[in-house]
């Protein structure tokens, strides 16, 4: 069976866009209630429990409330940019989903439909490009509100996102070194069949690139402005930062954007490090569509459903980790955040790239074929590096309290030249 072409391809793509966008919005809705329930559980309280069974309809009540509320327009706001900012907050997180492969290809009577909206040849460079424009929503919202708190939040947000973007991009370089390809479906396929001969087991890149996963996840936390990196909306200092002046649906759009971003980062971690839609210990899902249209493996509709389920489970677990971290780690101080980004993460990622490059060169010079031993050697190297890394990042060696450190505590973005 060949991949769909022509008119059927256009129809399939339009269908996928509508379907995936609806699913993403539904997932965002579920993620908000999920977060509030988990927060309730972690703080030993019930969480929302009045609207509908177990409070599950709370999201609909919130949505209706935000739709019907009065929209305020601050007198000092710059009108066009004030209106544009929430759109820019929601846009990158949603269009990022276009390059994420969800499930194994679905056979239909018109041809094989790949479960990815756009299999762009630049793959994760698209992820970096779109991820990098997420800053504008924050920066513009902060600036256009015409309020000092908003401006400070926007400044903090843009500085933080630009800083951690560098580490985010570099943490994916070892992945390219290992796969030699930037397309997301190829990366998933490599994780399913990381052997020279016939595949007998999958090798998810979370093992041979353990430290890379850690760096990517930490930078992802900083990019989504989640705790412990939620300085742009630190409520104790800045009310709620860049969206202080926003109300009703415009505020809601920032929130939807944030949750969509969390889900997107979780999905990206799944694709790059947790094998994408691969089902562990089963070789029936090793389906791959080559660029010339030949299909390896046997796609069926129930395999598509199963792999979609696997993808959903992995992504949900990662979203749970996001929420879990929120109530486990305290917020950084601003100077600590910048120090961690520029003086530690950047250098550590660069060294990591060098080490992985030399190890891969060494393995290939020795002549170990791609497969179990290849991954195992990389895994051992990563374990050793992780040990060194976590020792160096331990509280007291890198992040000091205010009294112990030599620097004064007030290292805010707006006061950078003072002090």
């Amino acid at each position, binding site marked *: 069976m060949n991949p769909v072409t022509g008119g059927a391809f256009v129809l399939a793509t339009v269908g996928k866009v509508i379907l995936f966008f609806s699913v993403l919005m539904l997932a965002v809705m579920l993620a908000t209630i999920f977060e509030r329930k988990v927060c309730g559980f972690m703080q030993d309280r019930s969480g929302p429990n009045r609207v509908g069974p177990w409070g599950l309809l709370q999201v609909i009540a919130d949505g209706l409330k935000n739709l019907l509320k009065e929209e305020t327009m601050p007198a000092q706001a710059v009108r066009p940019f004030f209106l544009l900012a929430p759109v820019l907050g929601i846009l990158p997180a949603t269009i990022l989903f276009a390059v994420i492969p969800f499930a194994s290809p679905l056979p239909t009577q018109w041809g094989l439909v790949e479960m990815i909206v756009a299999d762009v040849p630049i793959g994760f460079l698209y992820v*970096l490009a779109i991820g990098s*424009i997420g*800053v504008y929503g924050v920066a513009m919202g902060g600036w256009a509100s015409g309020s000092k708190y908003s401006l400070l939040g926007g*400044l903090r947000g843009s500085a933080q996102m*630009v800083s951690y973007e560098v580490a985010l991009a570099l943490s994916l370089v070892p992945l390219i070194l290992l796969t030699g390809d930037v397309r997301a479906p190829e990366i998933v396929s490599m994780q399913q069949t990381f052997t020279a001969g016939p595949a007998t087991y999958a090798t998810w890149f979370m093992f041979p690139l353990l430290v890379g996963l850690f760096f990517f996840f930490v930078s992802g936390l900083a990019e989504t402005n989640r705790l412990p990196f939620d300085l742009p909306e630190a409520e104790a200092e800045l009310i709620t930062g860049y969206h202080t002046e926003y109300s009703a649906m415009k505020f809601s759009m920032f929130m939807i954007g944030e949750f969509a971003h969390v889900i997107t980062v979780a999905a990206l971690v799944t694709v790059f490090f947790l094998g994408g839609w691969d089902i562990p210990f089963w070789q029936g899902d090793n389906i791959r569509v080559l660029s010339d249209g030949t299909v390896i493996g046997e796609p069926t509709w129930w395999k598509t459903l199963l792999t979609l389920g696997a993808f959903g489970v992995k992504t949900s677990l990662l979203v749970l980790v996001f929420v879990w971290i929120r109530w486990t780690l305290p917020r950084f101080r601003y100077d600590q955040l910048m120090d961690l980004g520029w003086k530690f993460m950047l250098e550590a990622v660069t060294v990591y790239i060098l080490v992985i490059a030399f190890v891969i060169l060494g393995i290939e010079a020795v002549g170990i074929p791609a497969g179990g031993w290849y991954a195992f050697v990389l895994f051992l190297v990563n374990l050793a590096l992780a040990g060194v890394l976590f020792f160096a990042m331990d509280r007291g060696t890198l992040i000091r309290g205010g009294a112990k450190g030599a620097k004064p505590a007030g290292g805010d973005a707006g006061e950078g030249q003072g002090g």
Partner: protein
Amino acid sequence: MIQDFLFQAFAASAILGAVIMVTRRNPVSAVIFLVGVFFATSGMFLMLDAHFIAAINVILYGGAIMVLFLFVLMLLNLGHADWRDLRGPVGGLIGGSISIAFLGVLTRLFVGGTDSRPVVEIAGSALREAAAEQGVVGVVARPLFTEYTIVLEVTGVLLLVSIVGTILLARRERT
């Protein structure tokens, strides 16, 4: 057909964005429209099958450099500066002649010289062949790391020097 239409649409919005950008008095608005121009340019690159250049254009200019511009403008609060950049007939004359020179270069690209085909078509077909062979990243990466290694490294050193210089200038005197 639809590719041509999209290319024209991106080109038109790039020119429109550029015109709006240079006529803005508020620097922040100008930056926002410049970002729009970069996105339109990336769209044009995409329509020309130059995916890698399109992505790099957005990552570097749209996502990093313009964010820094915006950041500095917001930090320094230059919202009220409304000087004109071109002052007097001399400035206008210099600006105008540079524009005409660029227009000449562009015309040369599309009209074609000794070869019968315009330069853009020759480059386009060569690019498409190379991309099919080495992938869109390889087309740019391979020459960079083989043919132009020295140039690449020297550019890197140049950037490093400018970074060190900036830090040296920004550092306060320790007395």
